[in-house]
């Protein structure tokens, strides 16, 4: 266990390991996304109320769920960096931030696009929309803070502390916004928890797209982390060897 952790903390080991891993992950992601999207967009029957519009849920729901625990993952990396000073953890945490921002932005965007035909407006101050917007701000904050520092080390530690502060705050923010919404307006029936009432051919493609999107963002995470490794370790011999041998891509 510890041996494995120590290995994971070595940029070189991670770089070579993830290099072997990437083709597999790419293949699985393409298959999952392909099956899910074709099935969901072309073969699933239209909803009796929303017609074809609901199909955006195959992208919207996975990203909306993912943005919270993507933040959690970033915070785990940050914690690992602060506690054990594992540089790899910081590189992964740094790579997490723009991806998390993108996931949240995609969730918001697809939600808005879905909202125009179904609710008649692209934005309402609903609890979920608002707390997702706050999530976007939190990701932006971590990203901005890191880039404000000249020193890589100080920026990394500051971003890590802010991520952990955010983790304590996110549940409070989410529940306060939920409470705020129920106070100010009647509960809007935006809940997707009644998908269980839907037939399997409607929600099964969502599993495929969900895991496919997850695979896609994990792939993005690995690629960004590898990029970060190459940038930070550019003076190390093994990185120079990679570039000399012309295998810089994979």
């Amino acid at each position: 266990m510890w041996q494995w952790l120590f290995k994971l903390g070595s940029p070189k080991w991670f770089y070579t390991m993830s290099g072997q891993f990437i083709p597999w992950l790419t293949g699985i992601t393409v298959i999952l996304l392909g099956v899910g999207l074709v099935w969901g967009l072309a073969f699933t029957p239209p909803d009796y109320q929303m017609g074809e519009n609901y199909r955006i849920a195959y992208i919207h729901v996975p990203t909306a769920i993912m943005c919270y625990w993507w933040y959690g993952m970033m915070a785990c990396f940050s914690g690992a960096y602060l506690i054990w000073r594992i540089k790899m953890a910081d590189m992964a945490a740094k790579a997490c931030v723009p991806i998390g921002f993108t996931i949240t932005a995609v969730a918001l965007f697809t939600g808005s696009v879905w909202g125009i035909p179904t609710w008649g407006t692209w934005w309402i101050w609903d609890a979920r929309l608002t707390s997702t917007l706050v999530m976007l701000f939190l990701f932006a904050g971590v990203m901005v803070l890191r880039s404000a520092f000249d020193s890589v080390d100080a920026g990394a530690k500051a971003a890590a502390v802010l991520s952990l502060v955010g983790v304590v705050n996110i549940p409070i923010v989410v529940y306060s916004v939920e409470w705020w919404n129920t106070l100010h307006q009647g509960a809007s029936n935006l809940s997707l928890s009644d998908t269980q009432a839907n037939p399997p051919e409607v929600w099964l493609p969502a599993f495929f797209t969900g895991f496919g999107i997850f695979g896609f963002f994990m792939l993005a995470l690995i690629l960004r982390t590898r990029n970060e490794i190459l940038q930070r370790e550019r003076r190390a011999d093994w990185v120079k060897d990679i570039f000399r041998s012309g295998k810089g891509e994979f």
Partner: protein
Amino acid sequence: MTIIAATVRRELLIAFRSPGDIINPLMFFIIAVTLFPLGVGADTEFLSRIASGIIWVTALLAVMLSMDSLFRADYEDGSLEQLLLSPQPLYFIILAKLGSHWLVSGLPIVILAPVLASMLALPSEAMLPLLAGLLIGTPILTMIGAVGMALTVGLSRSGLLLAVLVLPLYVPVLVFGTGTVSMALGGLGISGLLALLGAMLVMAICLAPLAILAALRISVS
């Protein structure tokens, strides 16, 4: 205990010798509140409905803007470094610093709030809930803001960055603070919400100094 008393005494002395640090956030609070009727119109009925929101949002911004005087001068003259090197319990020193900063920045805002709230025609039965919320809420704002300030004190231009970091974390305090007033106006009990704010204050007292310490160590090194 003596270190707490000494820190509070030092901070208050510094604050009263540079009164601009105390007065500027207050002036901001007053002026910003004045802008709202000018912007949304002088209709008393409408103003009374949004009064608590105006007071809370401007108070929140004023507390955030007052943060600059918390660590900035100490950072620049090196006393922050000395503080971090001191053998005394840092947790309590930070807590004392935060407490005395709240006394000169948060408390005046709370004291001034009823005047501005009645200018905005806030119904009198909502006055006490507003005050109670502000009294419990502003220390939380100070603590969260101090975390952001500690993270950015080493940077040359941190004003807007601080806002980006801190304002999303202010959301729960704002929600429960203005919620207290709405509940009171709706004839409902407010003790539950005040208890929630109190719980957040206790949590902030427990955790914020630790985060501030970690952040200061990064900024100073």
